[in-house]
């Protein structure tokens, strides 16, 4: 037996010297400085990540603003009167129409060389026999027989060469990028002005057949449509045969003005077999026959356009910007003569290359329509020559007038666009404006004096063309080109930051780790680099890009840090210890990393994430068993002396842990029922429970669901209250606890009332409509306001502790075993022996105390042991309720599951983590990984998917009275809805550190649940080992801060490798078919999720630190009060207490510096 430490302590206390006081103050300040530097370090790491994400995004996601302005017949594009030739003609819009009908045949992925005329065997080389060559014989025949009627061009598509973007380009004449920032993210429908819209507004009947992508792009635009599914790439024939079935009957019926047929077979053949395959020859021959048939049926007023939307690579894929992908066929034909001259016979196999979007203004003017507002294509001047009277002058004048209209329209667009967005280069814009005004003036002058020379006309035409090409070049520069350097730089920055996280998280808990010197240098370096760069740029007058500047600063601060770390690390440790993760966890993280590179896995992530999480959980259980922590088989025969070694890990019963694991799996599976499909596919059907209750018909089911949702709310509230009650924190008179007791039920009431109003709003009587509308706006606001008030209270007074002045000696307590009679079993013995032991100890201590002269005045403080987690849980609940309000009603069940499963997971993890008293404290990798997996899983189980049409837009209208009251508020609400799980799990991350300490009292709780009725339980005896619980963390503030830092860095690492994988996937697979459909949206969602998570993580850690600071000041006040009250007094602190009414204060050692050095004596519950 050791001598009781309090004796030594009191001896020490008698010899307090003033110098120690000063030491205490400095130690307090040091601790605060430590906290601040931990937070600063985390913020710095976050900033590094942000810089990497921003740099990558600026190179990868090219953005463009969508304008919703429309051209119209009545409104000419320029200030001048309508041009020459259209005056006085009825039905003409901007220009007289040359064709009244058009047949547009779009053959997906019809690469140019598929239609290229075969070389005549003039050269000595043997003819190359590739399957796709020379299969489109009808084109060749027409070109040879009717050179004035047909022309073949090589059309040059702009990247991204994916079908949807190309269709947008082919109808709007613009350069669609991945993100066209417009009003509408919810659907793919084109909001910009486009050809189809112009057709419809001028009363033309548009008939469509083919690829069902058009249905999404132009909903309801077609007078008649035959859509066929485009989803299955392996299916070569469904779409084409479907079109062929309807094509000729429709043509013959004559009930159309515009006929669009979009064939997919060639594209699918390319994806499935590649271009060099006999199937491709068959497919092309089929297309050839189809064109042949069309040509035979054409009438004189009809124009035939055959074009491919893009090409394909040698392997048959497309999406990128290589030569083969961007070259496509464009073939024009009309039964009336189109061209005044035959094509220049220089090299028939190398026809003219024209940009793809040139088709848009050409078609518009040929059909007598206004050019779509956002078009930046250039008309094909050749087509506007006068065919009948082939005077060169009038031909040139006609071409010039078409070009002028086109230029005016483009100028109008540029003017409007540059007023709305700032992403075009100002200098270039000015140059182009000058060019346009000059050309325009010249053209006007020529019109005034029609006798002008032909040479002057040609100059005007050239100037206009220069202007149009300049505009296109400028737009391509800012809208349609990946910046590989930026992408690579962003990926490298992300990777380096992940490495930094790994390094420092290993380092943080090692002895002799001091953060501040590590922090100061990189920050100063980064700032210096940033300033120097700014100065350089300012002096050289270059344009300042904040993204690049941020990246430079990040690199500037990262490099010295890594260099220093490398030097410090290399001298001390081997590199092998850098990967400290246990193998299986590393494997799971690697699988997650690799899965982000496969489009199938990204699409199926809603199932893959729960699978990985379940694997990790079973692995944890199996590992616990493997290491023998589940069962105490060896100890079964030996009398248990566990209570003598309270620092040992709590022995969890095997069944208990197994139950935790199975419960977790069950929760995950149940949450998976709220699944939403990434897109409408026959194989997958979204859960019907994701829709709001208001959309339900059938009163009874609706009422039952409403009851279930309110039940979920109430049980969530009850669970949180029960938890707080169990750890005793509910008894504190602090305002935050009072808020939990009274404010939370109010919030539940408000939410339930809001749901009732929202789901039954349509059934309200008309008189009450206004009232209902007002209430359904006010209620969410009230709930959110309550939550905000609660959080404020929590921040103001986070210490939920009940302080009581206990009279008399705290140690005189009844020792009563909750059973009578002789002990029957081993368990009883286990229970009784400690009681007897305790009693003896009690006696001994009493005698010892009696030797002291004065009876100490005692203060009992309850619930200190769970003070951190109580604040965390309260904060999480307060956050969860407003977030819940943003979701559909039935998601409340998922939120209940979320709380339940994170509770179970924390318990399961705590079973595997030993509680180490002196520190260093660590959070193992499997805990952090499981937490991150669970955040991902919850993202999906709350009905989200990382695609734009799946965003819950209705969240923008919760508590907002008018539609689009303010767009930033709407964005905030939608963002909070989308990233709710990210927020909750990131803020709750410190619980991973706290929970094992909280579970320390598990053993004692267990005992209490042994037989025995209420009365016996109430006089339950004190446990031998007083659970110190979270006060252990306070005993070693340095280790506590280091552990928080480590936890933050580990979580950032796990999140960081996800965003790194997404960025890398988008970088490597930027030519992939699915890059714009899968990888790019995934990257954006991951990026946003990372930002939200990192902010939440910092806030969560800051909250823990705030609680810590509050606890410190609370102690200080208490000690001061005690000093004022009496010369020597005792302090008693208690861990958990369930019934504070008759609670017996536990003695908790508090070795905080303040108390050790103060003049108060301290009861120390020691092991004798």
């Amino acid at each position, binding site marked *: 037996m050791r001598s009781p430490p309090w004796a030594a302590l009191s001896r020490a206390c008698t010899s307090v010297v003033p110098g120690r006081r000063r030491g205490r103050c400095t130690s307090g300040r040091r601790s605060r400085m430590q906290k601040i530097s931990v937070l600063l370090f985390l913020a710095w790491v976050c900033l590094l990540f942000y810089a990497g994400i921003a740099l990558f995004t600026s190179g990868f996601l090219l953005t463009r603003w969508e304008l919703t302005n429309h051209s119209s017949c009545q409104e000419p594009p320029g200030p001048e009167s309508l041009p020459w030739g259209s005056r006085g003609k009825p039905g003409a819009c901007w220009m007289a129409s040359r064709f009244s009908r058009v047949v547009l045949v779009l053959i997906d992925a019809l690469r140019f060389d598929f239609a290229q005329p075969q070389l005549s065997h003039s050269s000595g080389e043997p003819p190359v026999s590739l399957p796709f060559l020379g299969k489109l014989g009808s084109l060749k025949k027409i070109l040879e027989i009717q050179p004035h009627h047909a022309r073949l061009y090589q059309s040059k598509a702009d990247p991204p060469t994916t079908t949807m973007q190309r269709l947008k380009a082919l109808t709007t004449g613009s350069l669609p990028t991945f993100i066209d920032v417009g009003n509408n993210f919810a659907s793919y429908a084109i909001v910009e002005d486009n050809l189809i819209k112009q057709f419809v507004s001028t009363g033309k009947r548009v008939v469509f057949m083919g690829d069902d992508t058009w249905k999404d792009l132009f909903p309801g635009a077609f007078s008649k449509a035959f859509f066929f599914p485009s989803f299955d790439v392996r299916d070569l024939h469904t779409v084409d045969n479907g079109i062929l079935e309807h094509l000729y009957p429709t043509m013959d019926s004559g009930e159309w003005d515009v006929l669009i047929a979009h064939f997919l077979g060639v594209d699918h053949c390319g994806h499935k077999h590649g271009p060099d395959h006999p199937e491709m020859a068959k497919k092309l021959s089929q297309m050839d026959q189809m064109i042949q048939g069309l040509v035979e049926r054409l009438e004189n007023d009809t124009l035939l356009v055959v074009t491919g939307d893009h090409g394909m690579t040698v392997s048959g894929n497309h999406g990128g910007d290589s030569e083969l992908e961007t070259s496509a066929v464009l073939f024009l034909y009309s039964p009336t003569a189109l061209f005044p001259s035959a094509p220049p016979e220089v090299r028939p196999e190398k026809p003219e290359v024209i940009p793809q979007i040139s088709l848009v203004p050409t078609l518009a003017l040929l059909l007598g329509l206004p050019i779509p507002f956002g078009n930046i294509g250039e008309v094909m001047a050749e087509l506007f020559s006068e065919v009948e009277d082939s005077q060169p002058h009038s031909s040139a004048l006609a071409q010039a007038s078409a070009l002028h209209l086109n230029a005016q329209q483009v100028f109008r667009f540029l003017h409007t666009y540059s007023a709305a967005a700032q992403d075009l280069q100002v200098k270039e814009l000015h140059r182009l404006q000058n060019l346009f005004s000059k050309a325009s003036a010249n053209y006007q002058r020529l019109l005034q004096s029609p006798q002008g020379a032909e040479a002057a006309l040609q100059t005007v035409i050239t100037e206009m063309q220069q202007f149009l090409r300049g505009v296109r070049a400028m737009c391509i520069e800012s809208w349609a080109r990946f910046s590989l350097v930026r992408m690579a730089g962003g990926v490298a920055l992300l990777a380096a930051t992940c490495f930094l996280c790994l390094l420092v998280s290993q380092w943080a808990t090692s002895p002799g780790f001091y953060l501040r010197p590590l922090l100061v240098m990189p920050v100063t370096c980064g700032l210096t680099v940033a300033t120097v760069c700014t100065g350089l740029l300012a002096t050289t007058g270059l344009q300042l890009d904040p993204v690049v500047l941020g990246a430079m600063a990040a690199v500037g601060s990262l490099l010295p840090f890594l260099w220093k770390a490398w030097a410090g690390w290399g001298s001390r440790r081997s590199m092998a210890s850098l990967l400290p993760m246990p193998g299986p966890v590393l494997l799971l993280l690697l*699988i997650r990393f690799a899965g982000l590179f496969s489009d*199938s896995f990204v699409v199926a992530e809603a199932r893959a994430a729960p699978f990985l999480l379940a694997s990790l959980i079973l692995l944890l259980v199996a590992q616990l*068993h493997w*290491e*023998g922590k589940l069962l105490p088989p060896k100890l079964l025969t030996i009398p248990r002396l566990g209570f003598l070694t309270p620092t040992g890990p709590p022995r969890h019963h095997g069944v208990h842990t197994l139950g935790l694991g199975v419960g977790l799996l069950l929760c995950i*599976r149940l949450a998976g029922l709220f699944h939403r499909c990434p897109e409408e596919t026959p194989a997958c059907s979204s859960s019907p429970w994701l829709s709001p209750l208001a959309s339900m018909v059938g009163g009874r089911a609706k009422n039952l669901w409403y009851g279930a949702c309110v039940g979920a709310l109430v049980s969530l509230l009850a669970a949180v209250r029960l938890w707080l009650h169990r750890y005793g924190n509910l008894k504190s008179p602090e305002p935050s606890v009072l808020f939990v007791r009274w404010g939370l039920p109010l919030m539940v009431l408000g939410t339930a009332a809001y749901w009732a109003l929202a789901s039954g709003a349509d059934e309200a009587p008309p008189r009450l409509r206004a009232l209902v509308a007002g209430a359904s706006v006010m209620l969410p606001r009230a709930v959110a306001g309550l939550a905000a008030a609660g959080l404020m209270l929590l921040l103001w007074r986070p210490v939920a502790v009940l302080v009581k002045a206990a009279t008399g000696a705290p140690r005189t307590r009844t020792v009563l075993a909750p059973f009578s009679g002789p002990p029957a079993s081993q368990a009883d013995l286990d229970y009784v022996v400690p009681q007897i032991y305790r009693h003896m100890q009690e006696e001994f201590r009493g005698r010892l105390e009696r030797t002291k002269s004065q009876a100490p005045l005692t203060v009992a403080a309850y619930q200190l042991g769970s003070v951190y987690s109580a604040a965390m849980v309260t904060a999480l609940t307060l956050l969860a309720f407003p977030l819940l309000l943003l979701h559909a009603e039935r998601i409340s069940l998922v939120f209940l599951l979320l709380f339940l499963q994170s509770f179970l997971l924390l318990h399961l993890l705590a079973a595997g983590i030993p509680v180490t008293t002196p520190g260093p404290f660590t959070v193992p990798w499997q805990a952090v990984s499981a937490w991150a997996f669970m955040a991902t899983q919850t993202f999906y189980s709350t009905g989200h998917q990382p695609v734009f049409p799946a965003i819950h837009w209705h969240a923008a209208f919760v508590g907002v009275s008018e539609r689009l009251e303010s767009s930033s508020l709407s964005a905030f609400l939608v963002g909070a809805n989308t990233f709710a799980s990210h927020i909750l799990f990131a803020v709750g991350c410190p619980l991973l550190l706290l929970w094992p300490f909280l579970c320390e009292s598990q053993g004692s709780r267990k005992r209490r649940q042994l037989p025995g009725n209420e009365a016996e339980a109430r006089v339950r005896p004190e446990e031998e080992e007083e659970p110190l619980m979270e006060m252990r963390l306070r005993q070693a503030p340095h280790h506590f801060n280091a552990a928080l830092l480590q936890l933050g860095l580990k979580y950032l690492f796990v999140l960081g490798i996800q965003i790194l994988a997404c960025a890398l996937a988008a970088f490597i697979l930027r030519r992939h078919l699915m890059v714009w459909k899968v990888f790019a949206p995934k990257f954006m969602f991951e990026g946003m999720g990372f930002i939200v998570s990192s902010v939440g993580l910092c806030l969560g850690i800051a909250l823990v630190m705030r609680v810590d600071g509050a606890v410190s000041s609370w102690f200080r006040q208490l000690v001061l009060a005690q000093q004022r009250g009496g010369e020597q007094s005792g302090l008693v602190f208690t861990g958990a207490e369930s019934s504070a009414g008759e609670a017996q204060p536990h003695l908790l050692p508090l070795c905080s510096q303040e108390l050790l050095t103060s003049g108060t004596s301290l009861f120390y519950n020691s092991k004798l």
Partner: protein
Amino acid sequence: MKDTDIKRLLYAHLLCIFSIILSIFIPSFFLENFSILETHLTWLCICSVFVTAVNLVLYLVGKPNTSSKRSSLSYKVTRLLKCCIYFLMSCFSFHVIFVLYGAPLTELVLETFSLAVLLSTFTTVPCLCLLGPNFKAWLRVFSRNGATSIWENSLQITTISSFVGTWLGAFPIPLDWGRPWQEWPISCTLGATFGYMAGLVISPLWIYWNRKELTYKNN
């Protein structure tokens, strides 16, 4: 002594592998249109039966636990019944775990259950043969330093590799290759079979390599 043990282990394992290979080829003589992928359930049943039979034969020949004191008929019958119950229990619990892992709950129940039967054949049947219906012994064997003979060591390895194989078999399911073997539960059954066979091959080799380090408490 030890080398002969390892040799016997190797032969037993080769016999197990042979039985799986036989289950692929023999039925095609008797059944028309038999193939692993198309008549998958049939193959699963046959494979389970074959592997169980070989394990039983090995058990009867080898008699690994000769320590059974009683040899009365009633004892044997209760033991047999217990074994059957254990087997069924393991099938049902595997089924539950598959469903918890994301297998469809109401559709393809028979397929899921046959996967559970197959996995039980690969894991529970050897356990029953070697350790008997004694759950405590199972728990002991599957913990660190729990194995007391090379047979138990090889049991650890084959069981774990069967589980890992089944687990890995789930990964091709979401891929869009459109192969027939990607359907649930074919890839998992194939994974389990390959994992089991890999375990059978690896365990004698592993034991042979580590024969110096492996010391058992009993002997």
